[in-house]
């Protein structure tokens, strides 16, 4: 076992980690996309007039939100073992985060003044048109910063994908560590890459939030 920090290993591990980083980014972007779309669907479904729709939606959402992502990932990967792990991972990440983003949308929809709904009814718009033309355009603009924050936190949870053998950054770090017995260098580097990528993004989100007046 070596004592201290081996700088040579850093140069060796960096290209591998950056390779993995591409997959990390891909998973984050696609996962966020799934969460953004599915969250909106859940939020709209949660406002359905019938309790037959809203109650099951709430129960399933609460269940997914209260249970560990890691177990969901490992379970889904085992059940759908014939599907490419990366796709399983993206869908599970997306579904997990959709239960959070739906709350964001819900707050955004609640923020649309009541008069807007009444005006739509007075103009006898169909409910589809009310949502499409009036409510959603106003709601979605306000939720963008909050969605961005969830994208950042999803980015920090993509290492979970390593467990289901997706070859993202932490998978590469662990792989390198096992092969060369140099975990220190690999994991320190991985942590630094996370920091370098996520800190500027969260600063940017905060600025955006301030500009939209939150």
């Amino acid at each position: 076992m070596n004592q201290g920090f081996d700088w040579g290993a850093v140069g060796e591990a960096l290209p591998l980690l950056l390779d993995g980083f591409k997959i990390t980014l891909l998973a984050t972007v696609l996962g966020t996309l799934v969460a953004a779309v599915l969250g909106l669907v859940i939020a709209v479904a949660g406002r359905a007039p019938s309790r037959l729709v809203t109650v099951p939606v709430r129960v399933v959402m609460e269940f997914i939100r209260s249970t560990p992502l890691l177990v969901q990932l490992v379970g889904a990967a085992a059940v759908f073992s014939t599907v490419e792990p990366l796709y399983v991972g993206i869908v599970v990440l997306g579904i997990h985060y959709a239960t959070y983003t739906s709350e964001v949308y819900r707050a955004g929809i609640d923020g649309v003044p009541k008069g807007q709904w009444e005006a739509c009814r007075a103009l006898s718009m169909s409910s589809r048109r009310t949502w499409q033309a009036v409510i959603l355009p106003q709601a979605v603009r306000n939720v963008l910063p909050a969605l961005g924050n969830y994208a950042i936190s999803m980015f920090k949870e993509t290492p979970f994908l390593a467990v289901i053998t997706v070859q993202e950054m932490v998978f590469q770090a662990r792989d390198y560590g096992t092969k060369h017995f140099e975990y220190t260098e690999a994991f320190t580097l991985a942590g630094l890459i996370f920091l370098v990528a996520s800190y500027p993004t969260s600063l940017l989100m905060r600025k955006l939030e301030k500009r939209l007046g939150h």
Partner: protein
Amino acid sequence: MSDFFSAFMDDLPQLRSGLWVTLEATVLGALMALLLSFVLGLMSISRLLLSRGVSRVVVEFFRGTSLYVQLFWLYYAMPTLTGYDLSPLLCGVLAFGLNYGAYGAEVVRGAINSVPRAQYEATVALNMTPLHRMRKVILPQAWVQMIPSFTNLLIQLLKCTPLLWLISAADLMTAVEKLRSRTGETLTAYLTLLVCYFVMAYALTLLMNLLERSAKRRLGLETGGRSLLKSRSAVTAQTAGGAR
């Protein structure tokens, strides 16, 4: 299916000790996170630039580097670098405590800042010492604001404990994973595990709701019994300045 549940009954002692490890990691990690959030949170509202700076750096560092990497760093990298070996459970408690402490610091800062300015001015007018003003006036009001966000963080922490499985601590997931590979009942095993976590999360939420009610009572705010059953809202932790 019945195979799985008879194996489940056979493995009950291991499952119980796994559950114990999971709860231990959750509770100890949460206590450490609570302590750290107050230390870092109070530091971040201090008048000293140095103390604000230190708190900022620590918070951004632990929020920015991903819990997963921190846990693995503690488990794999630290022994090589320093020669100290930590037990898996201790690694978990440290990583959870540091990570969620950093998120909690933002909650503490946000809550203290949200106490009306006039309350603070009144304590100055009454010539209270800084310690007295914090303890008697500012913190009791801020505490009520913190609890919902802390509840969210606590559940997040509980949800991270299956990571212990990866660093070979014998937690609940490890025990169920063993059961699964022995019986081959993948779907049943993972669903059972999810239900276990759901029950724990719900129990913790109820406890925190009780705590919130008693904190509100002390401020003279009565809440009805129904509020105890309410579930967490997903947005509160965010508004306090942290992602998730």
